[in-house]
């Protein structure tokens, strides 16, 4: 199965590589457009002293953690974005149902966008900027936590992308909804969860667990505590939360496929 996946995405990558110039233009484009968010934050910090007691470097850490995860998710799950929406609009999803493979697998392996690494590059630069100005005492546990969080974050964002795509089964043309979930959640996670009101905190911790892509982990790394009493140690639950959430997304997708087969849209 995995080898088939590799084969299929390799076919896509090769197809993309035919347009070398466009690839690099896009990559740099993503670098700039995603980077502008942090430029905005930097400008704000020239006017304001801190954001709820967090310094620009600490915000940078938060930002980088969630952005890197998001960029990986964008790269891997691209099939569920524009390609899938096109399938819905053109009615070519039928072609997926004709093949003896799980539909989720097919959409997943229908695209792999290396150019999304533009965002990864930009976020990594911010990470270096942040870490070199923060005095974090790195232990082995903290390093493991860091890596696990990135993985968990990728899975969480991937799940959101799948949920956003599944909604397309009913509404066909909804780039905006996916945007609110992904870019909105992304932007929300760039700031400490503590600044939001209670129900936003609850939703983004327990329903759409974007907070787990960076916040508890940042608390652990920075030796901070959450003013609302959230235990920093739940950062270690990030992978589990991610997997459960992904499971929910996967089921929702199946529900979407079944619905498509009933109504044909």
């Amino acid at each position: 199965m995995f080898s088939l996946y590799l084969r299929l995405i390799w076919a896509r990558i090769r197809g993309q590589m035919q347009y070398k110039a466009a690839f690099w233009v896009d990559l740099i484009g993503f670098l700039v457009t995603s980077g502008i968010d942090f430029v905005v934050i930097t400008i704000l910090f020239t006017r304001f002293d801190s954001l709820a007691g967090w310094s620009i470097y600490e915000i940078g850490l938060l930002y980088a953690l969630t952005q890197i995860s998001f960029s990986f998710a964008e790269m891997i799950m691209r099939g569920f974005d524009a390609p899938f929406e096109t399938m819905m609009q053109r009615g070519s999803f039928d072609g997926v149902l004709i093949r003896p493979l799980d539909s989720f697998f097919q959409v997943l392996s229908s695209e792999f966008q290396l150019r999304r690494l533009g965002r990864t590059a930009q976020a990594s630069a911010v990470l270096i900027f942040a870490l070199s100005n923060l005095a974090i005492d790195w232990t082995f546990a903290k390093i493991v936590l860091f890596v696990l969080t990135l993985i968990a974050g990728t899975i969480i964002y991937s799940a959101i992308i799948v949920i956003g795509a599944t909604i397309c089964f009913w509404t066909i043309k909804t780039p905006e909804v996916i945007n609110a979930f992904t870019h909105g959640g992304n932007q929300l996670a760039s700031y400490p969860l503590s600044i939001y009101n209670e129900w936003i905190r609850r939703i983004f911790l327990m329903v759409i667990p974007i907070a787990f892509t960076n916040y508890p982990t940042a608390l652990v790394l920075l030796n901070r505590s959450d003013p609302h009493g959230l235990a920093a140690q739940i950062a270690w639950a990030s992978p589990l939360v991610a997997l459960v959430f992904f499971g929910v997304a996967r089921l929702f997708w199946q529900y979407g496929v079944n619905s498509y087969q009933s109504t044909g849209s």
Partner: protein
Amino acid sequence: MALIEVENVAKTFRVAKRYEGRFGAIRSLLAREYREVHAVDKVSFQLEAGEMVGYIGPNGAGKSTTIKMLTGILVPSSGRIMVAGRVPYQERVAHVRKIGVVFGQRSQLWWDLPTIESFELLRHIYKIPFERWRENLDTFSDILELGPFLHTPVRQLSLGQRMRADLAAALLHDPNILFLDEPTIGLDVVAKDRIRQFLQRINKERGTTVILTTHDLEDIERLCQRVILIDHGTLIYDGALEELRNRFGRERTVVIDIENGLPENAHDWRPIGVNSVRREGRRFWFSFDRHATTAAALIGEIAQRYQIRDLTVEEPKIETIVRQIYESGSVTV
């Protein structure tokens, strides 16, 4: 048990109503009402293995919907479908492994890659043993002449080339049933002919059951012994093509080229059994009812009046037959 069993299958869609008029736009924003569209309405038929059937009807008749239900893409609203002992939508992956589908409008191949690479990917997707895959590929390349463009990216292929590639792709995994949705649409005469010949061979040599949806009635004439005619979701005719022609294609035409000039009352003369006469210069078209007279008798009569230089006999066109069925109201078969 037949290979394909369709029993009282119906499919109903809910379609949102569009409000007309001035405030229609605002109204549709605020409230919604739906109406039901019966795309397929209690259709039943059976197909045995090895048949080649034409599935025809006007646009919106319910052809595509039926095909989608047979392939497992769509779930019927009611009724029973069994294909090779399986319910298509319930066992989708197992069912789909044994069928091949060609959509005339869309390609199943990977757009940016050379044709041969699409075939290779399909080999892995359908888990076709290499030897068998190679064999099929060579055979199809041969008959369909795929060689020249095997290494061309699919997006650069002409329509005819792409269709041939799609056909080969649909058969690489030795499916039992082949569903074709408008396979010759947009193709020129030579290309159409090549595809028809290929389909005949596949059906004959491999016993592949073929279901063909098409607007090109010549496809039907050349390929199918059996025809299923559907309109407004209802099955109107199911049977041999010959019988369809005999019952609703009663009119044949004798085309005569005459040697010399016309007598005065040429326009008024109408032999027994002739429905209409048309004339262009030296050529006459005598359309007659096949139950009222025979071509031989008619030609004999004509020969007594004119000196015949050349003649042919035309069979009724299917378009005419179909139109006649529609015009005579819904038909019970």
